[in-house]
């Protein structure tokens, strides 16, 4: 799909723009000519069967891997030229194996402020305020002094989302953040993302197999299949094709498995 169609007339300023991205591991082509744009305040889900190239796309989009063809622009700049990298928040897949690390929730979240203030600088009052705000958004304020290793998987994931939020990013990328997360945490997670999107105009790219928790809030669903963009449109259009994002009989994971 050409970029002019994706962007549309009068779209919000682009937080992320991928144009004709091709990427391969050795001879294995993983992404083949992907074009994708996400505007400020947009809530976009990226999904697809296992091995469809989702994580590779995220790595290329964040500048962690260089594409063989195509261009990446983050907040109007190439990843290498974006001076204020803290404007992009990232929650990696399986963010940390935390069971051996005696770090408190507050310490983990505060580590998200280091890049913004400068790595050699001491924390300032506004950093503490950003940590407080991020903890509030993910509803972990009461757990700030608890070691991360003592939290449930869902709470840990929320702590890492708070770390990404602590720098007040304009673009937030989350790679499989709700896999195996309890229902209460999924609700908190949904509230946190929707607040950032709708209130603060943060662009959110959520990579996941499970979109039930956020199905009603998404602006677009992007479906990758075999390294190609198989679908890019509103959830309603996907529903019209007989696929529900919720937990119904024809839900997304089952459908994706069928595609794979």
């Amino acid at each position, binding site marked *: 799909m050409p970029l002019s169609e994706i962007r549309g007339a009068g779209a919000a300023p682009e937080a992320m723009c991928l144009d004709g991205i091709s990427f391969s591991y050795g001879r294995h082509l993983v992404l083949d000519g992907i074009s994708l744009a996400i505007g400020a305040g947009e809530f976009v889900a990226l999904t697809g069967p296992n091995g469809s190239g989702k994580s590779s796309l995220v790595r290329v989009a964040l500048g962690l891997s260089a594409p063989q063809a195509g261009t990446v622009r983050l907040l109007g700049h190439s990843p290498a030229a974006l001076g204020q990298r803290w404007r*992009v928040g990232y929650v990696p897949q399986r963010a940390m194996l935390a069971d051996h*690390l005696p770090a408190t929730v507050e*310490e983990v979240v505060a*580590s998200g402020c280091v890049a913004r203030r400068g790595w050699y600088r001491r924390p300032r009052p506004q950093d503490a305020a950003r940590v407080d705000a991020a903890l509030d958004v993910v509803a972990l304020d009461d757990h700030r002094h608890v*070691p991360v290793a003592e939290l449930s998987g869902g709470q840990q994931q929320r702590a890492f989302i708070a770390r990404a939020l602590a720098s007040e990013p304009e673009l937030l990328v989350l790679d499989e953040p709700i896999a195996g997360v309890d229902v209460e945490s999924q609700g908190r997670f949904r509230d946190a993302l929707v607040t950032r999107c709708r209130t603060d105009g943060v662009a959110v790219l959520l990579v996941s197999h499970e979109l039930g928790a956020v199905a009603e809030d998404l602006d677009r669903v992007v479906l990758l299949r075999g390294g190609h963009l198989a679908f890019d449109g509103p959830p309603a259009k996907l529903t019209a094709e007989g696929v529900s994002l919720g937990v119904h009989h024809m839900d997304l994971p089952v459908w994706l498995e069928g595609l794979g």
Partner: protein
Amino acid sequence: MTLPLPWPFDRQYMQLALAAGVVVGVCAPLIGTFLVQKRLSLMGDGVGHMAFAGVAAGLLAGVSPLWAALAVAVAGAMTIEWLRLRRRASGDLALAVFFYSGIAAGVVLSGLAGSLNAGMLTYLFGSVLTVSPADAVTICALGTLILAVVAVAWRAMFAVVLDEEAARVAGLPVDALSLGLAALTAVTVVAAMRVVGVLLVAALMVLPVGSAQRVARSFAATLRWAVAIGVGSVVAGLALARAGGLAPGGTIVLVSAAAFAVTAAFGGRLGARTA
């Protein structure tokens, strides 16, 4: 000059040993805390073996073994980290290559220098009771450098060891911080070489941290506990060594291992979870 300290630190040689030992007791666990979180617990061991090659090279070339060890150890540690960062080799494979190359080069070079004798053994196992005032000044200077860098960079280093990829996306200078930590590891090893020796230096980087993890509930507290246990092990180890006529380097490490055994047995909740 001898300070009016009580037994067992009433003699000058014990006071010099105490000064050098306390610096190492502070710095080794401090750096070790970051290495353990990076799952590079044996980095100190690998760098220690390269420092051994450096000592031998210094003896062969007729230059100061300590400064030669520092040069070789810093270069080797940064190369290990560079290989890991560039994914040319996994962390443990890169370590193993340098670990064995270091000890082999040390044996060959010291053979060439005709110095594979008691002199080399003081570097392998430490000789803290023969620390000269000049050695103590050098060790204190290296310790001050380590403390100054950690005081400025520890929050950024924590962000990197917590999640290297997220730190890279956020724009932290991950490569520079990782290479800096590797260089500090080498400086610590060389500072500790006279105290516990290159064969045991990694123990002071790892054992106090393992103990601290079992009693601390935050990363900052882990750093504080690790340093306290490191300094406590050095002081108690030196006292026991004098009282019993024991080898001081080995005694310091055994005290540190005993502290680990106690915290592993009676440590807090984190210990219970990771045991």
